[in-house]
């Protein structure tokens, strides 16, 4: 998988987060994984991709990150526990990020459709069938870590 092709997924984060009230998105490590397994940091949102590109994108974050992001999305409402409201906000975040990436791809002439987000909370590992390579990009949203896992057949 050509790493330069994943840029729209990251540009989407840079575009969407300020709209939700965050000030900065900075980039940490980027790596390519040969092992086909993602260890959950606590909360994962998976969005399926189909049409010209097929694959999955997984947004992986700690429960603390998820609560802080959900709180910001709900106009600063405190989120002491990761409840159904917060779950709904975080899965909507996954939807917004993937939908924005799809729009950016479309602007470049590549059609990508997205499935509704699914939220996976707790101790788990995510993987995909086949030896699909995965690119992992660590981002910090006002200092909160958010890991973006991209496995797409470009």
């Amino acid at each position: 998988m050509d790493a330069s092709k994943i840029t729209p997924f990251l540009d989407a984060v840079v575009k969407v987060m300020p709209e939700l009230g965050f000030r900065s998105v900075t980039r940490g490590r980027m790596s390519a994984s040969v092992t086909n397994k993602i260890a959950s940091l606590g909360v994962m949102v998976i969005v399926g991709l189909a049409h010209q590109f097929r694959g999955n994108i997984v947004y992986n974050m700690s429960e603390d990150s998820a609560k802080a992001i959900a709180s910001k999305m709900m106009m600063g409402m405190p989120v002491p526990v990761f409840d159904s409201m917060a779950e709904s906000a975080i899965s909507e975040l996954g939807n917004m990020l993937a939908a924005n990436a799809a729009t950016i791809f479309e602007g470049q002439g590549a059609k990508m459709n997205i499935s509704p987000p699914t939220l996976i909370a707790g101790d788990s590992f995510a993987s995909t069938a086949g030896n699909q390579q995965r690119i992992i990009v660590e981002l910090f949203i006002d200092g909160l870590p958010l890991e973006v896992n991209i496995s797409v057949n470009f």
Partner: protein
Amino acid sequence: MKEPGERIRVLIVDDSPFSRHLIADFLDPCWFEVVGFADGFRSALDSYRTYLPDVVTMDIDMPEMDGVEVARRIVDEEPDARIVILGSSKAGEPVKPAELQGVAKFLQKPFEPVELMNTLRSVCEGDVADEVFNNCYPADFIASFVNFTKRFAADIFVQPVSNGKSLHSSGVSVIVGVTGQFSGKMILDLSAPTAKNLATRLLKQEPKDAEQTNVVIADFANIVAEHAVSKLNKQFRGAFLRVSPPGIFTGENFSITSPNMDVDVWGIETPFGKIRFSVGFKREGV
């Protein structure tokens, strides 16, 4: 869906030059753009591939091959093609709606420009009513699961269970996304021992490790989803459903939530153990 201001691109297939221009003149250029003309199967298929129109109008009465057959062949080659057959009362046998199902829409001549434009628009914008689709997809998905599983397991027992938005995983969950006019997902959830039993049956030998087990289960889920989606695409032309590759989740203690959508859930007793099967859709853009 069309953005406001974006025109619907039309390919006109008719052997008569006069009719081609008449149809083109019927289409208001504010809303429609005629991208090409063709006069038979070969030129229609070539033009379709060149211009990728949103919709094709097809005269039913053509000398080389009738419009229904041309439409059927184009759809065979290009399953995304949307076709409206323009039928004439003097074309002999009336077209039975059953012959067109899953292939094309039919508009009887003579028609007013507004009728033609409305038909083309409805085909392009997908006129599949939410309720109709929502009433059909659960049955198609569970049928796909049952039909496939029955090929290698006689005794399976399916029971709908109350549909909560969140489910605690039994250990292995496979999620297959569906995109298109309707987007949704299918989730297969089972314990690690059940996954191993099922994978052993499908492979006809014991999987070499948990990873191989999971890949086999993901393939199984993918086949079930592909079959269901293929049936729905035939039932609902214009829905353009596609499946995304399966995502596999494993662990001792995790839950799966699908906020903002209704999910149908079944508990299925199989010789390999219990499987929980769920499917849910939301309308695109909602």
